[in-house]
């Protein structure tokens, strides 16, 4: 059975990274759509110059809103599998086929985890500790062992697509969606991936905000667990 796959690339102020991402994705030949989240830099110019498929949002929605836009597009255009690949170049497209294979083998959502094999760039020590706390919380609530709950490198099938295009967390989508999907008894799996360090520009999560971020995410997961 041939699956129709769409790569969703959210991008916010990635003028120095997005060209690289476009070139790599074109090499692999998947359908992809770049969501320009109202970037204030030259990201849109790069997209126009490359004549890629893109959606340029009129206001900045953040990672949650931008990715959901991609899911809406994927759902409405009949795609079977949607894969998120960040516009900053940290996700390596060579793992996309592994994600797709895992989804096809019967999982509803497959996450590319940096911590199963601990290769490649695994982020700062402070963030790793925070993610450990998150993993623990998720395991406690949902009895599912997720080693990399903040990884945006993930693929989902049409069942999950149908949910996301209508209902997607706004603030901290990566861990919140795990709770959201696991609560509905869908099957989630992780596969090992190696991620790259950010090559240009700045991450939108500064190191100063990391601790505050971690507390907020833990609380959000608890709220998400209470919901519905």
């Amino acid at each position, binding site marked *: 059975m041939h699956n129709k796959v769409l790569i969703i690339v959210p991008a916010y102020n990635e003028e120095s990274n997005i060209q690289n991402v476009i070139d790599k994705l074109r090499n692999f030949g998947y359908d992809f759509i770049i969501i320009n989240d109202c970037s204030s830099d030259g990201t849109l110019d790069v997209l126009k110059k490359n004549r890629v498929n893109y959606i340029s949002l009129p*206001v900045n929605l953040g990672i949650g809103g931008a990715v959901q836009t991609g899911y809406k597009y994927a759902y409405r255009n009949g795609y079977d599998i949607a894969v998120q690949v960040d516009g900053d170049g940290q996700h390596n497209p060579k793992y996309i086929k592994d994600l797709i294979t895992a989804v096809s083998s019967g999982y509803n959502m497959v996450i590319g985890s940096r911590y199963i094999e601990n290769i490649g760039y695994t982020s700062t020590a402070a963030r790793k500790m925070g993610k450990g706390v998150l993993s623990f919380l998720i395991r406690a609530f949902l009895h599912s062992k997720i080693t990399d709950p903040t990884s945006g490198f993930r693929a989902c099938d049409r069942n999950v697509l149908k949910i996301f295009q209508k209902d997607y*967390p*706004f*603030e901290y989508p990566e861990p*919140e969606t795990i709770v959201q999907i696991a609560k509905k008894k869908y099957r989630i799996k992780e596969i090992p991936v190696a991620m790259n360090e950010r090559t240009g520009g700045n991450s939108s999560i500064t190191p100063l905000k990391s601790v505050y971020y971690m507390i*907020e995410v833990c609380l959000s997961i608890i*709220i998400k667990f*209470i*919901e*519905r």
Partner: protein
Amino acid sequence: MSFRLHLSLIIGCLLVLIFIVSLIKRRKLEVKYSIIWIISAIILLLFAVIPDIVEFLTYLLGVQTDSNTVYLLIIVFLLLVSISATISISFMTKRIITLSQEIGILKSEMSRMQNDILNFSDKNKPDITESEQRINSCK
């Protein structure tokens, strides 16, 4: 504090907590506001269950009575919530203005495109102005 007052306060706080949890369950609140309200409800319940905390705060703040402390804290909390709400409203207003402008510009571009398409395909039609009128009149 009389036992009856103490009991009424605890029951009142439990009702508030149940109400907040039901709001969260029904997804009536954005996650971040759910966090604020449920933490507030828990703190309120804590005050009701352990009045010593309020006593300590009364002493710390130099307030006359325990009830004054509770009023003061609740008023400060409500002030912060209102200010935060007006900030959110201002932010959303700007975004709505931007969205309206984008929709207006989109409609105008679409109408121009429809015009171009009809002009192109109606090369053999005698009355082009009538088609133009039809497009311009429908929103």
